[in-house]
């Protein structure tokens, strides 16, 4: 049985790595991660992928958090009868049960993942206009107290990127090697079922 794993672009590389590790009979179909800037459009984009996948695959699993859709993604998936990996967002998945405790300890935590460390310049500096308007940094980040890098791969170049990101935000950095966390365990369970 072939499975389509419809994944957020921010998780696609990691889902591909998990597919290879567990030798799943699956293909990964990505949805652009930039839709996070307009979460209203996520359900529609995922629905399109589901329709494409259904024509080819026996089973469809959506690898997304709620991602700011306010339950609209889950409502769509319920109507379509499609499963989603559990979790509100990728930080919660990667933090593997520790996300809420981390937030309770420091609500002003800015999280990075491998994807965000790689894309920080584009997604944060460029998209938030910080290159053009550096004076906006405090408008965006004054309430943050630290950056926590939830690292999937153990790569010095990604840690260096995370360090650069933390410096750009003027915040201290904490690196936590979490691997794929609950994203892996939850997907493994789903693929077994």
């Amino acid at each position, binding site marked *: 049985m072939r499975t389509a794993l419809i994944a957020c672009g921010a998780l696609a590389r990691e889902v591909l790595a998990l597919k290879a590790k567990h030798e799943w009979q699956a293909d990964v179909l990505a949805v652009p991660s930039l839709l996070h800037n307009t*979460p209203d459009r996520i359900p529609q984009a995922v629905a399109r992928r589901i329709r494409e996948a259904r024509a080819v695959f026996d089973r469809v699993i959506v690898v997304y958090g709620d991602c*700011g859709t306010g*339950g609209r993604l889950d409502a769509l998936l319920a109507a379509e009868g499609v499963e989603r990996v559990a979790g509100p967002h990728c930080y919660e998945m990667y933090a593997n049960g520790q996300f809420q405790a981390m937030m309770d300890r420091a*609500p002003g935590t800015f999280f990075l993942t491998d994807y965000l460390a790689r894309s920080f310049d584009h997604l944060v500096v460029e998209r938030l*206009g910080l290159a053009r308007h550096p004076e906006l940094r405090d*408008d965006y980040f004054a309430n943050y107290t630290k950056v926590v890098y939830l690292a999937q791969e153990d790569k010095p170049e990604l840690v260096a990127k995370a360090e650069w990101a933390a410096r750009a935000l003027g915040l201290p950095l904490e690196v936590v090697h979490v691997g794929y966390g609950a994203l892996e365990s939850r997907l493994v369970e789903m693929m077994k079922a």
Partner: protein
Amino acid sequence: MSEELDLTKLPTEEIVLQIKDDLYDGLAAEVVAAVKELLRRGLTPYEVLTGSLVAGMDVVGADFRDGILFVPEVLMAAKSMKAGMEILRPLLVETGAPQIGTLVIGTVKGDIHDIGKNLVAMMMEGAGFKVVNLGINVDAEKFIGAVKEHKPTLFGMSALLTTTMPYMGVVIKALKEAGLRDDLIVLVGGAPLNAAFAEEIEADAYCRDAAIAVETAKKLVALKRGV
């Protein structure tokens, strides 16, 4: 506005248009200079606020909603409006400008995101509401204390995280238990929210952005007062 532009030589209506352009372009120093010039010409602080700053921000809000402007541009415009408001605020108090009511607003417990909430606070102030901004990470106790102290007409809550938005329901329940809910118009907002969520937690309205918050607030206050 170009540096060589001499405001003193422009007709008043052109300065008003210029303020709107400068707000749109996020030019705070130019907005401040034009506000001062309009005041020097005898316009009331209230006229400057509504006719120039609020009107200018309405254009910014509409273009943001239409996908013409993005968050950085809106924030630069807001900073410019804030700079203009710094001049006008004390004068508005002195001249007894009309106030529609009081708004108590804050970002809920566990959440430190305040960009949208601060935009709402500023736009509501511009629309003539007295604003009590409780800041970020506000728990039910603090919200209730502020309601008892300031007796607002409007009560606003903001959350950016899926994990913190349910706390809005906790606050509304606490307001009910304290016998305060029925006297308030409760508005909620934040990226992960929607109208269905607002209804579920028994808020009066979900506001998608700052301009809609002002529009909704005015409408609901008028309805409540039977205007």
